[in-house]
């Protein structure tokens, strides 16, 4: 009898707990009391959405926010750090209008978000606040403009440079890093003679695309938002890249046991990598004794093509406090905040006025800043992920199965056509 009562109690307890879970309230903080929407009369709480590549990044944003709150005492800012896949976490929030008021947007999927109407066009706010958009690096700013409107301001920039292992270069008797890809091929022979892997680069359009553009090709026509894989001008650059893959001048990181090229480079398994400034904090942490130099990304065919990876602060269209959010957005992309970014050394400031001070502090970053000049934003219109998947899979098949470049390009086009617009 007693035992039974005990079981009943347990059952009731369990049911009660599911009841609590089932009715978990999804109350929205920060809505505040509506009624008096006068500016500055009641304190406003804003949310800032971000990812954190490292604790240093979170710390930087926290410091920037502290400076903002000091200047704007009636606005409180909370950060919301997304772990795991950022875009995947953002989509449902944007769809259900519970997204942070301002948040990071990577250039690669910016057009997809812009065309979906989830982001707030900023032009009228920029005009009202007299923001000098000319101070932003043009390529980075252009990455967040869609059909004549601006949907975000770039917070920082990254480009590729050539990082090279000085010890391995000395071993192979190479005195200076290659300035062109032709020189690279000669150096690669010297390195291979000593059984050293010359360069590690993933089979990824985000890295090898400069080869294509250096030879006058283009995968994407910006003005028409049209994919141009099958353009014959693309074959030369792709062939150059694939030949280097074939004769093992370039080896994919996963064939060296790493997720990305920074890992084998830090282990001294490869002489060169072409990565962005994010590799510097990584190497400081994982290989503090590695002797390496940073050279400009090699040119070819007389052109020094490069890629720009940039991230903006954008505003959610569903924000309840657009004016306060705009204030925060302009502060986080403003000169004071960018100066803090420059001091942290995490990335290159996107404002030209901040770049010279940045270079004085961090002369090692010169190659990344110079790379900006002829860089193309890593962004292919609204095709986004479908575009990248199609060309990367085709290129991978081409490298592994020795297909002709023209066949790789037509296969990429076919895959894209079969995947898009469903």
């Amino acid at each position: 009898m007693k035992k039974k009562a005990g079981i009943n109690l347990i059952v009731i307890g369990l049911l009660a707990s599911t009841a609590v879970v089932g009715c978990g309230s999804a109350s929205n903080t920060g809505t505040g009391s509506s009624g008096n929407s006068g500016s500055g009369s009641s304190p406003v709480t804003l949310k800032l959405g971000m990812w954190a590549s490292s604790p240093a990044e979170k710390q930087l944003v926290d410091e920037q926010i502290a400076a903002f709150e000091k200047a704007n005492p009636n606005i409180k800012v909370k950060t919301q750090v997304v772990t795991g896949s950022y875009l995947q976490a953002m989509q449902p929030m944007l769809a259900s209008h519970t997204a942070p008021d301002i948040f990071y947007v990577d250039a690669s999927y910016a057009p997809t978000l812009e065309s979906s109407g989830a982001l707030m066009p900023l032009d009228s706010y920029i005009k009202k606040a007299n923001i000098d958009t000319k101070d932003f690096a043009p390529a980075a700013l252009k990455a967040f403009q869609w059909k004549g409107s601006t949907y975000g301001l770039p917070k920082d920039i990254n480009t590729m440079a050539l990082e090279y292992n000085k010890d391995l270069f000395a071993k192979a008797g190479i005195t200076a890093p290659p300035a062109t890809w032709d020189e690279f091929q000669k150096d690669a022979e010297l390195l291979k003679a000593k059984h050293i892997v010359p360069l590690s680069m993933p089979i990824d359009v985000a890295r090898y695309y400069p080869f294509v553009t250096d030879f006058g090709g283009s995968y994407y026509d910006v003005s028409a938002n049209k994919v141009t894989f099958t353009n014959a001008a693309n074959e030369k650059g792709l062939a150059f890249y694939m030949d280097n893959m074939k004769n093992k001048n370039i080896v994919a990181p996963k064939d060296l046991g790493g997720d990305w090229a920074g890992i084998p480079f830090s282990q001294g398994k490869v002489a060169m990598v072409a990565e962005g400034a994010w590799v510097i904090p990584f190497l400081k942490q994982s290989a503090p004794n590695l002797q390496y130099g940073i050279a400009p990304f090699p040119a070819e065919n007389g052109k020094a093509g490069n890629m720009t990876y940039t991230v903006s602060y954008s505003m959610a269209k569903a924000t309840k406090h657009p004016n306060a959010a705009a204030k925060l957005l302009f502060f986080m992309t403003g000169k004071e905040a960018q100066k803090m970014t420059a001091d942290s050394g995490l990335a290159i400031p996107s404002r030209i006025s901040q770049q010279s001070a940045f270079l004085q502090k961090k002369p090692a970053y010169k190659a990344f800043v110079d790379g900006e000049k002829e860089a193309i934003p890593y962004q292919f219109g609204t095709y986004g992920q479908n575009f990248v998947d199609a060309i990367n899979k085709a290129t991978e098949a081409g490298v592994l199965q020795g297909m002709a470049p023209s066949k790789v390009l037509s296969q990429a086009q076919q895959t894209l056509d079969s995947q898009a617009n469903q």
Partner: protein
Amino acid sequence: MGNRHKFFQRNTFDQAMAGYLFLLPALVALAVFLIGPIFYAFYISFFQFSFLDPGNAKFVGFSNYLHLFRDPEFLRALWNTSLYSICVVPIQTALALFLALIVNNIRGKTFFRVAYYLPTVTSTVAVSVIFIFIFEPAGILNQLLLHFGIHGPNYFNSPTFALPAIMAMAVWSSVGQFMIIYLAGLQDISEEIYEAAKLDGAKGWRLLWYITVPLLRRTTFLNIVMSMIGTFQVFDQVYVISGGTGGPLNATLSVVLDLFNKGFKTMQMGYASAMAFILFVIILLLTLIQNYFLGREE
């Protein structure tokens, strides 16, 4: 008498009501978080639907479903998943029976049961990460093979070896679950049947073949169906090992991974929902076929 009957009636009604009242939170949660979304997914599978922009959903009728059968990526995913299922299910079931028979009469029964069951309760993501270490180009397995003078491949980056490596991992990590079910089935077979068979002169293998296996038929059916459903829904392992791409060269693209990428990466939620219902129909058909052959009572 009548009064008492009435009282009894009301009492059962009250009891039932009380029962449902207790069930209510769970039922509400199921309706809101499971049944509702299933119907909604069915509804949007007839639309070109990005859930960032639900206002612009375009009704396309059966076009999502028809397009699936012309989509090389999906067909490849379906082929990979079928291959995976065809390889994993029989091996897993046979191995589970073998382990159950051994563990059923051995010293230290409890220890072995726990040891074989542990991988099942381990997170698949953790298991995948561990197996990445084993199958690395210079990983444990290749170091072992080197002792025999074999230069092992780069398993997870080779279109030939990636899927078999994941199959091996799946068998290892879920065989314990099916072993436990087999153990329960073995407990159900009464000793008397074995005694009668022994009196008739049956021994060893013949006991197994003519008594144990036929009497375990219902258990086997359950195991095969569960295993098949599990293999058709394979996702976490391939997601972790291929880094979400299904690579190399789509060799590890499973249906659920393709669905996930279409829904959350390229924002084609309507298309992804159609894929989910095709997968549901395939699993349902296979279960019905197996039920026809294995599940009937004699």
